[in-house]
C-alpha cells in the first residue's frame, strides 16, 4: 500500500482517538473538581500542560486566565488548537477524505456525521456532559465499524497502530491530571523537580502526609473517565486505591485502555507489517521500561516523571513507524 495512504489512515485513527480521549480528559477533571473541597484551587490550568499546549494557549494573551470557561473552550472548540476536539475531528475527516477508497463507506459517513455534530453542537456548561458523551460514543462507533467492516489487512493495521499509540499516550496524560492535582495533596513536597504544571497546581492547604479522605473517590473518577471502573472492580477485588489503579491502568494486560494492553496490540500489528525491526526495537525498550517500573510506588512520588518517560518512549516509537512506512 502507498506510504501516503498508510500515513493518512494512521493519523485519521490517532485523531479520532485524540478527540475521544480529550473528551475523557475533560470529564475526569470536571468530576475531580466536583469531588474536591472548595478550598482546593488547582483548577483547570494543568490540563493545558498535560496536553502540551501551553505555548499555544498563552500565545496571543500571555496572561490569559486559565479558568474553566477558557480551558474547556480551548480543548473543545478552539480551531486554532490542533488538539481540540473540533480540530481533531476535522483533521481525522480530512485524512479520511483523501483515502476514502481504502476504508468502508460507512466509516466515512460516520466520521463525517460526528464532525458535523460537533461543529453544530458546541456545548455550554450544562450541555457539556452530553456533548462529550456523544463524542466518545461516536468515536467508539467508528472503531467498531472499522473492526467489523474493513478487511483486517495492512491498512487496518495502520488504523490500529494509530488508535493504540494515541490511546496509550492519552491514558498516561489522563493519569497525569491526577498526578498534577492530587499527588501533591498526598504529601508531595517542593523538593522534587518541579515542572511548571506542578508549581501552578500546588494546593494552598499545607501537606500533612495524612491519608487523604477524598483519595479513593478521586481514583474512582479517573477509572470512570476511562470507562474502567467496572472492569477494575471485576479484576481487583479490594477497595479502590491509588497503587492498584496505577497498576491496572499502566501494566494491565486485559483492559483495552491500559498502557500495557495498548503496547501489546501495537506489537501484534507491527509484526504483521514489513520492515518492522526498528519500530519493534523501540517498542521492546518501552515495554521493558513499563514492566520494570514499580508503579505502586509512583503514587507517592515520581508519577509525573515516569509518565514523561513513557511519553518520550511513545514518541520514539512513532518516529520509527514514520521512518519505516511514511518517509518521503
Amino acid at each position, binding site marked *: 500500500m502507498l506510504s501516503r495512504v498508510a500515513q493518512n489512515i494512521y493519523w485519521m485513527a490517532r485523531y479520532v482517538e485524540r478527540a475521544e480521549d480529550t473528551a475523557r480528559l475533560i470529564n475526569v477533571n470536571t468530576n475531580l473538581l466536583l469531588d474536591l473541597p472548595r478550598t482546593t484551587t488547582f483548577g483547570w490550568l494543568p490540563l493545558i500542560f498535560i496536553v502540551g499546549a501551553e505555548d499555544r494557549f498563552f500565545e496571543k494573551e500571555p496572561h490569559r486566565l486559565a479558568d474553566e470557561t477558557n480551558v474547556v473552550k480551548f480543548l473543545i472548540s478552539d480551531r486554532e488548537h490542533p488538539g481540540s476536539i473540533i480540530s481533531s475531528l476535522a483533521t481525522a475527516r480530512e485524512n479520511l477524505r*483523501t483515502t476514502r477508497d481504502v476504508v468502508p463507506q460507512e466509516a466515512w459517513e460516520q466520521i463525517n456525521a460526528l464532525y458535523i455534530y460537533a461543529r453544530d453542537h458546541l456545548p455550554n456548561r450544562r450541555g457539556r456532559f452530553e456533548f462529550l458523551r456523544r463524542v466518545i460514543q461516536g468515536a467508539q462507533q467508528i472503531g467498531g465499524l472499522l473492526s467489523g467492516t474493513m478487511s483486517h489487512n495492512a491498512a487496518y493495521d495502520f488504523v490500529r497502530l494509530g488508535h493504540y499509540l494515541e490511546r496509550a499516550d492519552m491514558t498516561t496524560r489522563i493519569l497525569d491530571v491526577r498526578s498534577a492535582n492530587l499527588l501533591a495533596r498526598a504529601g508531595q513536597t517542593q523538593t522534587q523537580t518541579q515542572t511548571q504544571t506542578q508549581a501552578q497546581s500546588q494546593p494552598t492547604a499545607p501537606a500533612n502526609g495524612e491519608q487523604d479522605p477524598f483519595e479513593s473517590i478521586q481514583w474512582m473518577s479517573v477509572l470512570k473517565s476511562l470507562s474502567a471502573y467496572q472492569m477494575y472492580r471485576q479484576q481487583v477485588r479490594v477497595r479502590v486505591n491509588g497503587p492498584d489503579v496505577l497498576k491496572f491502568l499502566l501494566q494491565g494486560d486485559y483492559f483495552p485502555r491500559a498502557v500495557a494492553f495498548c503496547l501489546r496490540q501495537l506489537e501484534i500489528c507491527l509484526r504483521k507489517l514489513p520492515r518492522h525491526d526498528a519500530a519493534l526495537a523501540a517498542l521492546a525498550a518501552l515495554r521493558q521500561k513499563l514492566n520494570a517500573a514499580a508503579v505502586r510506588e509512583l503514587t507517592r512520588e515520581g508519577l509525573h516523571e515516569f509518565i514523561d518517560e513513557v511519553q518520550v518512549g511513545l514518541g520514539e516509537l512513532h518516529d520509527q513507524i514514520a521512518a519505516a512506512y511514511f518517509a518521503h
Partner: protein
Amino acid sequence: MTIEWQHYAATDSYYDELIASVTGPRPAARALCEYLASLSDEELRERKTAAELAILVMGITFTVYTEGGSIDRAWPFDIVPRIIPKPEWDRAEAGLKQRVLALNLFIDDLYHEQKIIQDGVFPAEVLAQSVNFRPQCVGVSPRYGVWAHICGSDLVRDKDGTIYVLEDNLRVPSGVSYMLENRVVTKRVFPELFGHQRIQPVDDYTLRLYDMLASLSPRPGDHPTVVVLTPGIYNSAYFEHSYLAQQMGVELVEGSDLEVGDDDCVYMRTIEGLERVDVIYRRIDDLFLDPEAFRPDSALGVKGLMRAWRAGNVALANAPGAGVADDKVVYAFVPEIIQYYLDQDPLIANVPSWLCMREKDRKYVLANLDQLVVKPANESGGYGMLVGPHATPAERKRFARLIQQDPRNYIAQPTLALSTSPTLCDDHMEPRHVDLRPFILSGGPPTYVTTGGLTRVALRKGSLVVNSSQGGGSKDTWIVATEGL
C-alpha cells in the same frame, strides 16, 4: 397529472431525441414513453426520490472548492433516459474510431517528420502558434503510435437531426464515471424497463480501460503496475479519479507518491519500499506533470517524469503533447486530416467552421457576427466565446477587434439549434438541450467506443450550458436495438 406526450412541447425549431413533433414518441423510445405515461404522479415522484437517494448513498459527487473548504455536491441527475437507436449509433461509433485514428496519426506525424505540413495540407503557421505543441515530445515514439489513448469527443445534433462532432478532448477528458454511475442509478429506479428493452450495456468500460492501459507497459510479459495520478482532493474530478482507480483495482497516487530514480524509472513509495510503476493514467495537465520539464513551480507533478517517459521506461496516458490536436483551429482541419492519413471521407461531420486566418473566411465572419459563434483556439469549457445572436453590439465590436488583431486564434461556426430531450421538471416533461460525450480508447487492444456516452443536459429552461458547475446535469444514455420495432 400523469404524462401526456401530446402535451409535450416538441417543436420544429429543435430536434427532440425522444419525441417527433407530429408522430409522437420515436420507435426506439416508444416503450419508455408508454411506461412513463403509465405511472401516476405519485409513482413518478417516488422514482425521482429513489434516484436522489441512490446518488446520495452511493456518494456520487463532484467537488466545488470554496473558501470554507471543499464541498462535495450531489451529482444533478434527470431520471428520463436519452435514447439513440443502435443503427444510428453504429454509424457514429465507426465515425469516432476513424476520427481518433486519424488524430493519433496526425499527432505522431507532428512530433516526427511533419509530412502533413511538407505536403501543404496543414499550415506550418498554425502549428507554430499552437500553445499545446510540446517541443519536449519531439522524436518520442509511444507504443502503437498512440498519443491520445483516452479521447472524449462532444457530439451534438442540429435541427435536422444530423450528428456533428463539436470538439475533441484529447488531454484529460472527464465524465466517464458519471456515465457508469448513471446506469447503476437508472437500473435501480426502472429495473422493469431493462427486462424487455434491448438496452446495450455500458459496464465494461473500466475493464477495457485497464486492458488498454496494461497494454502500454514497457515491460511486457510482467504483471504491469498501473496507477491513476490525480492532482488531489481539491480537483473537481477527484471523485472520478478515485472511482476509476477503485474499479480497476489500481492505486490512486498523487505526485508526491512517485519519484524517478537514477535509472530513469518511476517508483511509488509504499510501506514495503519503492515499487516500480509501468503505466500512469495521468489526470494532471501537461504543464504540471514534471517541474523539471515544464512549470518549475508545479507541486502536483513528479520531477524527472518526462525523462523516464522519453527513455521509454514508463507509459503516460494520455501522452504529453497530445493536446496539440484539440485546438479549435486544428479542429477545423480534421476533415482534411482524415482524408490525408486514411484516404477516406469523414463518416461523422464536423460543424462547418470558418477559419479567421483565411482572408475570405474572416471577411464573412466579420460581416455575420450576429449569426455566428466565435471561439478562441485554445480555451475550453466555453470560456472566451462569443454567441453572436445573444451578444450586445458592444461585445460584437470587441470580438471584431480581437479577430483582426489575432486572426489565427479564432474560428467561427453557425449557431446550432442543439437537440432537446424530455426532462422531468416538477411533475411534467419539458424539453431541455442535451449533448453527448462518448469516450474512445486506443492502444494495444482494438479501439473501443463507449456504448453511448455521457449525456449532459442544461437543466435551466432554454439554456445551452451543460457544464455541471453551471446548472448542468446528466442523464443515462440508452443505445436501443431497433430490429422489429
